[in-house]
């Protein structure tokens, strides 16, 4: 079976949906972060896929954006984890359903 763009897009959409589902349903903050990372990965996969299946010539724009995105998501994960630790120190829990101080 030859890889096609549709296959990549389906995998990417599935990956995004799984990430979104994780971010929306999991109660643990770290799992939510993982979900977010999965959605980013899905986006990066799309960049690579569109780049790979685009007509030649192939300037490395897609790869460059993916690399940038991975770097930014790494920073984002670091910030996110640090926030999780700070929130945990405050609330003694990582269950996001209990972070409701801003409710109206």
């Amino acid at each position, binding site marked *: 079976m030859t890889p096609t763009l549709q296959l990549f897009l389906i995998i990417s959409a599935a990956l995004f949906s799984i990430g*979104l589902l994780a*971010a*929306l*349903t999991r109660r643990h903050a770290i799992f*939510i972060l993982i979900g977010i990372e999965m959605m980013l990965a899905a986006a990066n996969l799309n960049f690579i896929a569109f780049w790979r299946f685009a007509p030649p010539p192939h300037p490395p724009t897609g790869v460059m954006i993916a690399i940038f995105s991975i770097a930014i998501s790494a920073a984002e994960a670091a910030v996110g984890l640090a926030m999780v630790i700070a929130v945990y120190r405050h609330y003694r829990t990582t269950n*996001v*359903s209990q*972070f*409701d*101080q*801003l*409710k*109206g």
Partner: protein
Amino acid sequence: MNPGIAGNLWLFPAVPFAAAVAILALTKSRRKTAATLAVAGQVVLLAISVVAFLLTLQTHGFRSVQNFTWFTFGDQALRLGFVLDPLASAMLVMISLVGLCIFVFSVGYMAEDKNFTRFFAYLSFFSGAMLGLVIANSLLLLFMFWELVGLASYLLIGFWIERPSAAAAAKKAFITTRIGDLGFFLGMLWLYNRSGTLLFYDGGHGCLESAGLVMLGASATFIALLIFCGAVGKSGQFPLHVWLPDAMEGPTPVSALIHAATMVAAGVFLVARVYPIFSFGAVNGVTSSLTVVVWIGVTTALMAALIAIAQADIKRILAYSTVSQLGLMMVSLGVGGVAAGIMHLLAHGFFKALLFLGSGSVIHGCHGEQDIRKMGGLRRLMPVTFGTYAVGMLALSGVPLFFSGGWTKEEILHATAHWPGSTAPHYLMLAGVVLTGLYMVRQVIYVFFGNRRSAAEHAHESSRVMTTPLIVLAICTIFFSVVLTPAWPWLHNYLTGESIHFEIADLIQPMLLVSFILVGAGIGLGIWMYRRAGMPDGDRPADVDPLEYKQPALFRFLANKMWIDELYAKTIIAFAWAGARFSDWMDRYFWDGLVRGFGAIGQVFGMFTAGVDKRGINAGVDETTVGARGLARLLSDAHSGQIQIYLGVVAVGMLALLLLYAWLA
């Protein structure tokens, strides 16, 4: 500006006013200081009066006028002023001399009174007001002092304020004279309207000088009559005489002051002062206003003399005799005998003060008893009082030759005899002379002769401080006649400004003989009628008056003052009461009802607006806030704080946008 007294006429009212204020500032216990201040004030007044009098002797028809501007409004200035002329200066001397005697007498008479100091303050005030009235050169200034005289008389008549009758008498005097003053005030306004000035003498521009009089024209009669209303009230002329006998409620020195020197003299003086207005446009010496003056005077003189015959109160008899004599003076002024009227006023001032102070001495000796039927035989117990009283009585009766009252009365009768208007006043006044003799003899017999009755048993002569003024006044009464005789009519010519000549032949006038006969008839009739007064006579009991025994109906009619008070009570006062009741009813039910009605309308409207406010506006605002709160709660509920729900909403929104985009594309 004149130096000396003519330039400082303001001193006359100022000195006694200052004394009054100083006395009022004293405490009640400083009796001696108060009396000294008041008497000293009168002595100073007498001194400056004499100085002023001597000044007026220097030239015939002397007149010194001192005008000043009171205030200015727009381009008009209201000017007041003082005047010194023979009329004023003769009055000044009489008032201050009689006043001094009365003041000294009061020191003894009021010695026991607890409000001694207040009494002297009022007396000084009274005397000051009267002196101000005499020297006023403006009808307005005269009116001001005139009202002050009224106020002072009110204070003094009601001096024994704890007696209801004194308070009522004070009110009666004040209100009755006020009725006359209303006319006076209207006359004054009319005069100002016509002539533009209220100054009497103003270098030819005053309202009593020819230029001012011409401007009055035909209205002079009405102005004169309106001003005469004031004189009628003040001088106790019919029909406003009712207050004068009631004014006897005041202490006797006050009665003397009111009846002799001040108050009642003011009315006669006023007519004499504005005489040019009365006589303006006279035909043959008669004007309609002067005719009214004559007939009012005649009515008053005769009526009061008749009433005096039947009175039992020693002071009331004198009060009615004053009313009667004032009527006589008015007749004299009315028939053109201004000088005679003023001479009689001056002479009357002396002997009436003497009689009142004498009656005060009698009352004091009889321990406050005023009913002559309870006295009798006092001539032995009170010789000085009797002697001086007899002088006063003979002067009042008009006994000629030796007593001032005889000369002045004769002159008045002389003037009435030549009045072209009518001869009736002359004969009526002759009858009045007889009546005067009659009631004075009756009084003297009742008080000083016959047997001693209840009040006379423990009577005693008064102290020196009271008898000395009596003696002084008696001497004045006798010696005053020197300047009154027709042989040397000094005072007459002084007042009229004519030159004096001495003619012994003029002493005997036909009128003198008539006077002799009439006075003799009056006194003789009195002695014959009352020879056994106060004693039983035949089947007449001791306490019945001889006249009452013979003519009970007539006596009752006179003793009840001709029922004039009752007539007023039934007519004018009843009318006033009805008016007052009607006004009260109108106020209570009509105006009050209107006010209450408007109030009720306001209340109903208030209730309506309150309802609208409560149910409409308030409820609307409440509903709005409740709604806003509901909405706010709804919106705040959306902020659940659950971060995953926010994210889910974002995701759903994103999906919806994508679907919309896909559908639109």
